[in-house]
């Protein structure tokens, strides 16, 4: 098996008109067939050596797209090629060239040690037996699990499991890597290390497709980003290009206590207000108000918030997250 890419195209990933529909049934006595269109005709092109971010809310179609690219799902329509190879017709050849690192606790043999987990997959990826131990030690060292390899995975923290996922994905040195929310549930220090590793891999020439819910992660890592919503790509470009799409907006953040639904409605009705997003953290409400051509927005908001305990209110420059929110909440 060779790790070198067989195709000569500059594109590592080509997705054209990809559709994926899930068929399911509901009801006990009267069975009813349901069709869910998870991905509805997306087009993507990722150049070799590029670090590409795929962003979107839950259920937008990110994981479905990655699963099709990883040969785990067949597309309902469209063509998908990795390094020039079709993921349907040349699935096995594609599998040799890709690594899939997904986030979360699952996907490892808990009763086996970290070493045995890697040892088994090294065999499945046809690594030379005499080189197995050395290669496993290398990837363990790289992800910071050296010295813990004899421990059973069931005793590992989430961060350690994530590192083991990474180690497995890198075992066969694939030129194309898919990272599906690799920092989810990982503590801040661990997440920073994962991001550093992803950046290093990109610098070493790997093509990486990354999905994440953390906008700062995508902003700091990705060369290009596609935003997917309801199964369709709604925007594509560099992080700065996406941010430029909301550069004419004013963003005001409010931290307050006791904002009622009528107040939120009145805010949304203000002239120029494009979106009002609210998160609740402990007792506090965190509001992000985006407006276009809105003069005196802070003052007008404060008027509406009369009688509400406001801890902080501040205007700031739009970020990638604001651009993302604007894109995925657009009607």
């Amino acid at each position, binding site marked *: 098996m060779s790790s070198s890419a067989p195709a000569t195209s500059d594109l590592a990933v080509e997705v054209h008109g990809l559709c994926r529909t899930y068929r399911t049934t509901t009801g006990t006595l009267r069975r009813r067939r349901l069709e869910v269109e998870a991905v509805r005709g997306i087009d993507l092109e990722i150049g070799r050596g590029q670090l590409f971010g795929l962003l979107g809310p839950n259920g937008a179609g990110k994981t479905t797209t990655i699963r099709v690219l990883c040969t785990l799902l067949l597309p309902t329509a469209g063509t998908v090629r990795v390094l020039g190879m079709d993921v349907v017709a040349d699935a096995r050849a594609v599998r040799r060239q890709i690594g899939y690192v997904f986030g979360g606790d699952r996907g490892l043999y808990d009763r086996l040690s970290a070493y045995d987990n890697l040892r088994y997959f090294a065999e499945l990826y*046809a690594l030379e037996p005499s080189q197995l131990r050395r290669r496993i030690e290398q990837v363990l060292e790289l992800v910071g699990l050296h010295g813990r390899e004899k421990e059973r995975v069931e005793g590992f923290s989430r961060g350690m499991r994530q590192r083991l996922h990474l180690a497995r994905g890198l075992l066969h040195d694939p030129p194309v890597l898919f990272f599906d929310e690799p920092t989810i549930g990982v503590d801040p220090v661990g997440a920073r290390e994962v991001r550093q590793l992803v950046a290093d891999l990109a610098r070493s020439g790997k093509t990486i497709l990354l999905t994440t819910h953390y906008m700062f992660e995508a902003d700091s890592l990705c060369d290009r980003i596609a935003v997917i919503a309801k199964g369709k790509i709604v925007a594509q470009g560099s992080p700065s290009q996406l941010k430029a799409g909301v550069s004419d907006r004013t963003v005001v953040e409010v931290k307050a206590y006791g904002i009622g639904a009528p107040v939120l409605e009145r805010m949304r009705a203000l002239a120029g207000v494009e979106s009002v997003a609210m998160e609740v953290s402990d007792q506090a409400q965190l509001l992000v108000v985006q407006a276009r051509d809105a003069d005196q927005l802070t003052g007008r908001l404060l008027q509406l918030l009369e009688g509400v305990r406001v801890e902080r209110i501040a205007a700031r420059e739009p970020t990638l997250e604001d651009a993302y929110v604007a894109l995925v909440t657009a009607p």
Partner: protein
Amino acid sequence: MSAGAELARPVFRRGPAPLAWPRTLLTGWFFQLKMQAQSGFMVLTALVQPLIFASIAMTDQQAGNRTLPLLYYALGAGIMGIWSTVVFGCGGVISWQRHQGMLEPLVMAPAPFVLVLLGITLGTATVGLYSMGATLVWGWLVFGAQLHFASPLLFVAAVVVTVVSLGLLGLVLGSSFVLYRNSNAISNMLEYPVWLITGLLVPLSLLPGWTHPLAYLLAPTWGVEALRAAAIGGDSAIPLLWCLVASAGYLLLGIWLVRVVERRARQHATLNFQ
């Protein structure tokens, strides 16, 4: 995490891929065995149930003054245990792999999925050997069964062939378990009928004629016959040969089924548990 560390390129095996298949299979079998041997549930399934059935059969034999030796019943109960382990093990293991999120990385690996699955089912069948050992020791300790084997070498060969054939039958079952999320229900239905039809509980001659063709298609029929003949005396070569023929049939059927099922699983998105 030493993010800046340099990775030397891995060295892949040279030569035609099929040359590596035995090693891949053996590794899968070993790790499956290692995991299942640590599972209290699997060990109990393989140990306790066969002992209960062996005790009933041997008590019945002693009370009824039957002519067949106790070893005959102990071996039948042992194979019953291996079959239970295969049926529950294959269903349980596949469901468990799906729950653990392991089916996707296994399918995504470039090694043929049939080898991966075969490693799992052979490992499961090997855990069933606990049953065989337990019923023999139980029969000897509690019921005074004589553990004199007419042909020890043929007995060992029969054990190996039977375990392999049951593992291959598990491959045929296991492929359906990849496709259906509720496969445990299928495995529950398969345990008792196979015990009955293959002559593990009662001799085949006592069963209606229409069951015989079905029995001849199932490896436990030939496996238990070969084991009993090698242990008690008789011709074990013919049943052993049929066991091998059945195994070859299961292997071919398994390879075809796994190919079809893998494609359908990718079509119907049944590899993960979401």
